[in-house]
């Protein structure tokens, strides 16, 4: 009802503040979940830097390793780890909502769909760690 009439002069439209998400913990968590994507992008940058250093030779690679030991980068990467895990957990927990799988007439519970994701996560992580560490 955007046209005022004789008996209802105007309706009031509340403007949503830029800080709407700070009002409730649930929305803060949502924004943090979305912000985790920034740290995902950061890790891609680190990975690309490592590939570049590997290409350039052992000296460059050692130098990059050194910078990764600096307090700044260690903190940044620790924070990134926290966010990336937060992303993984929220992702696996929400995935079952989109997938309706019926087994013999009954719908599979959220746990039944989330659990294999977690298992896959552990198995894949272990495999990658093994590939990297056995050399």
């Amino acid at each position, binding site marked *: *009802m955007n046209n005022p009439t004789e008996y*209802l*002069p*105007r*309706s*009031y*439209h*509340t403007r*949503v503040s830029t800080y*709407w*998400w700070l*009002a*409730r913990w*649930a*929305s803060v968590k*949502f924004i943090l979940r*979305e912000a985790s994507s920034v740290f995902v992008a950061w890790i891609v940058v680190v990975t690309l830097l490592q590939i570049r250093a590997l290409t350039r030779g052992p000296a460059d690679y050692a130098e990059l390793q050194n910078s990764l030991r600096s307090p700044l980068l260690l903190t940044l990467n620790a924070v990134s780890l926290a966010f990336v895990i937060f992303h993984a957990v929220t992702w696996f927990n*929400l995935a079952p*909502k*989109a*997938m*309706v799988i*019926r087994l013999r*007439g009954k*719908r599979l519970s959220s746990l039944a769909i989330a659990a294999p994701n977690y298992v896959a996560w552990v198995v894949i992580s272990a495999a990658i760690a093994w590939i990297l560490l056995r050399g």
Partner: protein
Amino acid sequence: MANRITLEVTRYNPAHDEKPRPDTYEVPLRKEWVVLDALNYIKDHLDGSLSFRWSCRMGVCGSCGMMVNGVPKLTCATFLSDYAPGPVRVEPMSHFPVLRDLVVDTSDFLVKLAKSKPWIIRKVEKPLDEEYFQTPEQMDAYKQFSMCINCMLCYAACPVYGLDSLFSGPAAIALAQRYNLDSRDQGASDRLDILSHHEGIWGCTFVGECTQVCPKNVDPAAAIQQYKLTATMEWLKALVLPRGAE
């Protein structure tokens, strides 16, 4: 338990108020009272000019949605004693224009609901003396989404709707999905054309607040994500089989 509680209720009279402002009222605190009872007490005994919507007072009509301490609630299903000692802030539902006091303009939702075509669409009608049979499993597929009472609490909770009033919104999409999943319906492609665009299902960022506030456990967030999955599958199918395989 004290026997009085204070309510801060938003008042707005467009004829002479610049913007909404709260008025304070003290009402009895009875253990079985809900917020709606308090509002009716105010209207009956303290200030007859207070305007608000309500009807069934038992959580099935969807009329009495309001913000109670910043959370979208059905006032007939929200116990006053849960907020003791108070004060309790009662405001009109967020994200809708305020017409007067606690009454909001819901016409936007009604337009969007109609766009979702929330009715059985048949491409091929059955003769009138033939029934549509449905097994319990088939009903189970859409039953949860059919519980929607159109109370719009999900719209009040959805930050995307708050920021972009062009967004179709949780209930409209959940109800579209309810019909898409109904075995008697043949209108899924019609609804897909309407909803699979930036302000339709793709506007949703899966915040999940809609599901949190829904009084009937409809889980609109799940409906929307399922719909996104369906829409993606349809898009892939169209890509791989352009002539369309029904």
